[in-house]
């Protein structure tokens, strides 16, 4: 060291070279840090077995009475299946003005359920029973005229958590904290009475 101190031929510090090296080292380090974060963050995603448990589920409709609702589980979500009666279908008309999204324009549903009854087959309603507000289970309030819910209640669903109201197609009423209609999962039919939740209907089925 002392040799160098006495040596006045020590070159001047090359500032631009030093700046470049600092920037290159810091930049490489930062890229490395970000890439290292990837496995840690990705480890939070659903595991293979969680994804396998999310495979489609089959539901037998043959034992359902008209007007009855059954609940099922698909991907840890409640699936509501309602066999709608002609009266229930008729109750869907006449209150479009009270709905936030009567045409389901903003709401989530497969293309084949984006229609008046929000269903592939008019009499079979399939919904994800998760309130679009914050995920509680809406309760069934199918009796029309239930004044504890609202005057001229047409029948539908009522969320006990924050009071969101939905009709018998899962469409949300004005005055509810939820902004969107209840979600319709992807589903299809294999024969008349077998419903498959998790597999989209083929285009020709949807056109029917």
């Amino acid at each position, binding site marked *: 060291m002392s040799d160098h101190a006495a040596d006045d031929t020590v070159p001047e510090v090359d500032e631009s070279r030093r700046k470049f090296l600092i920037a290159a080292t810091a930049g490489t380090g930062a890229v490395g840090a970000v890439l290292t974060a990837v496995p840690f963050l990705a480890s939070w995603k*659903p595991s293979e077995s969680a994804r396998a448990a999310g495979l489609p589920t089959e539901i037998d409709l043959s034992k359902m009475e008209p007007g009855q609702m059954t609940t099922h589980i698909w*991907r*840890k*979500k409640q699936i509501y299946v309602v066999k709608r009666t002609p009266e229930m279908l008729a109750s869907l008309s006449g209150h479009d003005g009270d709905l936030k999204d009567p045409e389901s324009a903003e709401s989530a549903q497969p293309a084949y359920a984006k229609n008046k009854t929000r269903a592939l087959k008019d009499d079979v309603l399939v919904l994800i029973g998760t309130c679009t507000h*914050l*995920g509680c289970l809406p309760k069934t309030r199918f009796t029309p005229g239930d004044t504890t819910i609202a005057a001229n209640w047409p029948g539908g669903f009522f969320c*006990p*958590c924050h009071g969101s109201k939905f009709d018998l197609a899962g469409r949300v009423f004005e005055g509810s*904290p939820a902004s969107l209609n209840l979600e319709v999962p992807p589903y299809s039919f294999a024969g008349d009475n077998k419903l498959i939740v998790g597999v989209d209907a083929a285009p020709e089925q949807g056109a029917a």
Partner: protein
Amino acid sequence: MAAVIEGKGGFRAWLNKRMPVDQFMEDQLTGYYAPKNFNIWYFFGSLALLVFVMQILTGIFVTMHFKPGEATAWNSVQYMVREVPYMWLIQPMHAVGASFFFIVVYLHMARAFLYGSYKAPRELLWVIGMLIYLALMAEAFMGYVLPNGNMSYWGAQVIINLFGTIPGIGPSLVEWIRGDYGIGDATLTRFFSLHVVALPFVIALLVMLHLVALRQVGSNNPDGIEIKEKLGADGKPVDGIPFHPYYTLKDIVGVGLFLTLFAIVVFFVPTFGGLFMEAPNFEPANPVSTPEHIAPVWYFTPYYAILRAVPDQKMGALLMAISVLAFLFVPWLDRAKNKSLRYRGLASKFLVGMFFVTFLVLMWLGLKPADGIYVLLARIFTTLYFLFFLLLPFVSKADGNGPVPERVTYHAH
């Protein structure tokens, strides 16, 4: 430093040469001068530290018997309180401790509003404190989810789904947080890791920074005047007294009172009428049965009331986030010259009083079902809540500039 060591031999000198123990004690305690006019509101800082240590201690023992996970969590809690000696005491100490933590922290924050403790030069002290509060909210929420009772489950459902309202990334963010399509094993085990390892470290670090910042600027006091501006011949503030032994002794009285109240609650009313522990959490999580009425624990309900007051989901979540984060900006919203409310006008006193009442009313409303008159009240008080932050700059500017005393007001006891 040399002065401290000099004249001492033996182990103490040996130690101080290798680690500045005496120096540290002098810097932090015996040589740290605090204003001599502290009142009862100044108990809550040291009490917050006490509860933090208690939560760590009881938490260590609860962790010894707790088994995180969908199938095991609920049973392991039942097992520990029913069969493991004295866990009937230690587990409720931990659960009740969470509520006491928030009682102490809310009173500690209220003190800052009364005496302007967040004002310059203590803005960063306040901001670090608010970060502790946010970390504490996350810690408490996850702790509430861990036992996997039915309110744990549905509370987690509601809170995690709040992240789903973020445009674009919301739904995938929710899936990422849960690690499944619903709340499951993956969710509970990662919450366990965060609750037991990550967040306590974060909180401990923030508490340390809070104290470092406090040592730099010194404590405020009920008069809101700086004692450092009046120094005696010895260079020490004439209105200051060493933190130790004066305030350590005073704080011991506070600790005694606090532990008495804490023991009464733990032994006689651990659920506190369903406020500290909610009834639906005495049954295991049931994904197919929503409790008829979902309410978070009392310390989150003011924000929950704001969330529910808005008839639009995204706006509700946004307003709720703003209502929490608004506190961060208080040091800059308050434009008064004087810190303490003692030397501000009636309008400022009324405004802060209104805010305290509003916070408590929202707390009560958040526990009530969201229907009928409660919705209307929640909307009125949500408006008042935000009105406070909007009016603060103007009111404080207008009537916060009166004369202040030269020296702190102090009556010997």
